């Protein structure tokens, strides 16, 4: 793999991201914040869904657990503790459920993760109801600029982790087990441990992102926090961008955010229909995504 072709564009994007708030207006800052959110979520998802080939369609569960944790801790502890606490909670949850869940393979894993996310959503909804707290207000939320810097840091961290893991034994092991799990186990890859590591690692940053995003609005709503559409958007962004490539998260998140800015407010249904069409089209005809297209063109010239 050509490292400069991967890292150089990413560094350029990062430089742009650092310079961005100095000229961005309040609306564009929110767009930037959302872009960082999606890049962080998609790049983390790629660790498990891309490298190991375990496609999670329930990644919102980590986002939600992180958000719920930080909402409960908010105003008890400062932001810089609430956010890692959200990541920790999500990571612990992944670690706990990982061993049994990762025994389920292929398409069954996909629907299982979807089911788990819905189950946790309804459990949280139930416990909020039992507590008599069907809706909560959050006071003293941080400014959009603070959120932007934190999310930019998380997006960068997610991509750096992805770049590092790909170069290590863990990354090579994951790619080997994606191609053939039995063969990988035979040549000595600790399959179960590697899968659990990838699954847990891919949960932590989404937990922290959720911990930040829940503080974006003053109104707390469980169904919004655990919305299955978030999981669907993550998978679609990863597939469209290219799940084999660290640039994929940036490309996929960028393209879909652009479409969503045009359509979401006016016609959310059309946005989701388009997402479905793009997902089907890319799975069928461009399984390596936009990044794969770039690599192919790079080689041809």
């Amino acid at each position, binding site marked *: 793999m050509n490292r400069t072709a991967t890292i150089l564009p990413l560094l350029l994007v990062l430089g742009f991201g650092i310079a961005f708030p100095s000229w961005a207006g309040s609306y564009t800052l929110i767009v930037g914040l959302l872009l960082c959110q999606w890049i962080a979520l998609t790049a983390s998802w790629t660790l498990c869904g891309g490298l190991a*080939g375990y*496609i999670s*369609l329930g990644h919102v569960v980590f986002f939600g657990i992180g958000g719920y944790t930080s909402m409960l801790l908010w105003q008890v502890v400062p932001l810089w503790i609430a956010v890692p606490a959200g990541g920790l909670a999500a990571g612990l949850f992944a670690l706990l459920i990982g061993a*049994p*869940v990762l*025994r*389920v*393979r*292929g*398409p*069954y*894993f*996909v*629907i*299982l993760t979807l*089911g*788990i996310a*819905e*189950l946790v959503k*309804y*459990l949280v*909804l*139930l416990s909020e*109801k039992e507590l008599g707290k069907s809706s909560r207000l959050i006071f003293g939320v941080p400014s959009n600029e603070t959120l932007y810097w934190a999310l930019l840091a998380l997006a960068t961290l997610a991509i750096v982790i992805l770049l590092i893991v790909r170069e290590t034994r863990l990354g090579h092991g994951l790619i080997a087990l994606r191609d053939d799990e039995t063969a990988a186990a035979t040549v000595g890859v600790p399959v179960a441990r590697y899968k659990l590591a990838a699954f847990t690692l891919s949960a932590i940053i989404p937990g922290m992102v959720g911990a930040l995003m829940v503080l974006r609005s003053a109104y707390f709503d469980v169904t919004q926090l655990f919305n299955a559409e978030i999981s*669907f958007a993550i*998978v679609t962004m990863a*597939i469209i961008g290219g799940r084999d490539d660290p640039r994929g998260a940036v490309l996929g998140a960028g393209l879909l955010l652009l479409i969503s800015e045009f359509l979401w407010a006016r*016609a959310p*249904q*059309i946005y*989701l*229909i388009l*997402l*479905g*069409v793009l*997902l*089907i089209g890319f*799975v*069928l*005809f461009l*399984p390596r995504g936009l990044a794969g297209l770039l690599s192919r063109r790079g080689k041809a010239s």
Partner: protein
Amino acid sequence: MDHIFSGQLLFSALVLGSLYMVAALGLNLVYGTLRLLNVAHGDLAMLGAFTAFWCFTLLGLSPLLSLPLAAGLCALAAWLVHAGLLTRGPLAARAFDGEVLQRLEANSLLIFIGLSVILQNVAALAFTGSPRAYRYLDGVIEFAGVSMTGHRLAALTIAAVIGLAALAILHFSRYGLAIKAMIESPMAAEVVGIDVRRFRLGALMTGFALAGVAGGLISMSEQISPFMGFPVTIASFIVIILGGLGNLRGGMAAAFMLAFVQVYGVALTSPSYASVLLYGVFVGALLLRPEGLLARRVASR
């Protein structure tokens, strides 16, 4: 807790179980013969439900008469999926290559997730997202101390007839035996001279049509909405996982078991536990059978 032993709950559980049975019968046919994990199954039921709804509200047509129309529409959808996805394009080679079918990867599931999202949002765009209902046969019949509404009794009767007919066809007709052989082993079925391709299209159309009928039956007694499909899909999956692939009697037992768990579980707690029970059983079933739907087949060898 007297009401736990009342006939009323028993009747509710029987009605729900029979609806699950019809829906799962369709999924069983499609998965059994094509190894296609159709996550859009419940959305076809949604299509059937809206067909019955509009026929009743606009044309005054009894749901009993619009059921064949719902079935026909879904069968047409099956034909379109077959023509557009399974006989051309990158899926075609995989979908019709004998035993390769058995290892249908997670990717193909993503295609049907995309289809499901498209169906839901097209319906939401066309009919708005708000739940709807109509009043049909809502006279109450008293029998053995149980008051049964006409529409639920009708739904139960039709579902029972479909279930018994399916059992008879599968066990006694040539068509049914061919389907059973294909579920057992597509390759062996081809060797003994079954026209596998033709039967696959037939099974796909019948399976989709059954989903449409199930939706029409659901619309008779419950509120319908563009997003009603996912729980139906999940319930059908539970029934096949627990009942066994291609095992109709096992499937029937599992459908009624799930319905009893849900109805009695809710009666003992509160309605807010309904979703928790459904997804809880689903996650539990998949964790107990990590091989998914093929577990029983493999185990019985």
